[in-house]
């Protein structure tokens, strides 16, 4: 309960501008698929200490289970946790407004011109690094469960079915979770 009390104490003191800038950073730094989880955990758990790894894993799981662009859900949930509805608005605005406008302008500009080879190479290097970051984040969030063999078996099953079995995500989600 002390953990809960601490977070409630903090909830009163987190300014909306901090939520805005935190999720602005998550959005801008998260390159490619899955990058958002890496940065959301880095900022919300490690840098700002707003939530614990366990709560973060809860939020990610909750969002994965629902439709839509899941990383946006992390902004929605952390904003709601820290400051309620207005916190969600601040986190969502930080996540979307500036990055989306910049991205749209950049995207429209780039679509006009052909890709330069050097640009492709840089993007390739970033993609390789980003894959490693994502792997490590998944392992980190699994660590609290490492003492339960059943949890590890299910993590391994869902990993194997998606990474090597090529099964649709929905089948894996709704097939594995009720078994627990």
């Amino acid at each position, binding site marked *: 309960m002390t953990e809960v009390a601490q977070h409630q104490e903090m909830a009163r003191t987190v300014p909306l501008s901090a939520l805005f800038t935190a999720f602005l950073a998550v959005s801008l*730094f*998260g*390159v*490619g*698929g899955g*990058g958002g*989880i890496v940065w959301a955990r880095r900022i919300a758990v490690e840098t700002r200490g707003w939530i614990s790894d366990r709560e973060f894993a809860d939020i990610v*799981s*909750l*969002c*994965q*289970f*629902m439709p*839509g*662009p899941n990383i*946006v*859900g992390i902004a929605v949930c952390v904003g*709601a946790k820290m400051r309620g*509805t207005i916190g969600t608005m601040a986190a969502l605005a930080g996540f*979307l407004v500036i*990055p*989306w406008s910049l*991205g*749209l302008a*950049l*995207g429209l500009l780039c679509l006009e011109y052909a890709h330069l080879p050097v640009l492709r*190479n840089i*993007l*390739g290097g*970033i*993609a*390789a*690094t*980003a*894959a*490693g*970051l*994502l*792997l*490590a*984040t*998944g*392992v980190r*969030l*699994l660590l609290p*469960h490492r003492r*339960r063999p059943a*949890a590890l078996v*299910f*993590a391994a*099953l*869902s*990993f194997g079915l*998606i*990474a090597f079995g090529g099964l*649709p*995500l*929905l089948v894996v*989600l709704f097939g594995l979770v009720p078994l*627990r």
Partner: protein
Amino acid sequence: MTDPSAPIALTAHLALVSSISFGGFPTVLPDVRNFVVVTHGWMTNQEFANIFAMAQSIPGPNMILMMGLLGWKVWGFPGAVASAFATFGPPCTMYFTAYRLWDRFRDAPWQRIVRLGLVPVIMGLVIASGTVMARAADTSWRAIAVTIGAAAITLATRLSPMWMLLVGGALGGLGLL
């Protein structure tokens, strides 16, 4: 451009598919491609592929950006904004409602059961998407080394991912991967 009903049709369709895109927006991309390329002919297959590649490599909310670029093709700036709202609006309402319920029942026994079962499965999925990304990105043994190195450094230290991405990008830019 296209006739005036086009942006409304696109917005309505995106709002519908975003509401059923379990497992993330990429799961409904084939449907969106079918809608804009085959059914309505608003753009060619090549244009759609270019927009996808572009959105993937720009930092920020990729899928919302991608739908914005599609909307732009159909109806300029208003189309871009409408498409973006249709992509994140319905799911965000669901996230908010679900989180509120989750938080309210934070001490309920069923929540412990859900957590113990759901979290490991989802984290297995996160690691799996890392693997899938690595298979796409790692075209040489050097790139594989970069992926493994980044994962190891993240697990062992609290070094900011930004440094690793910068080094990875620099190695790629120098033609070393």
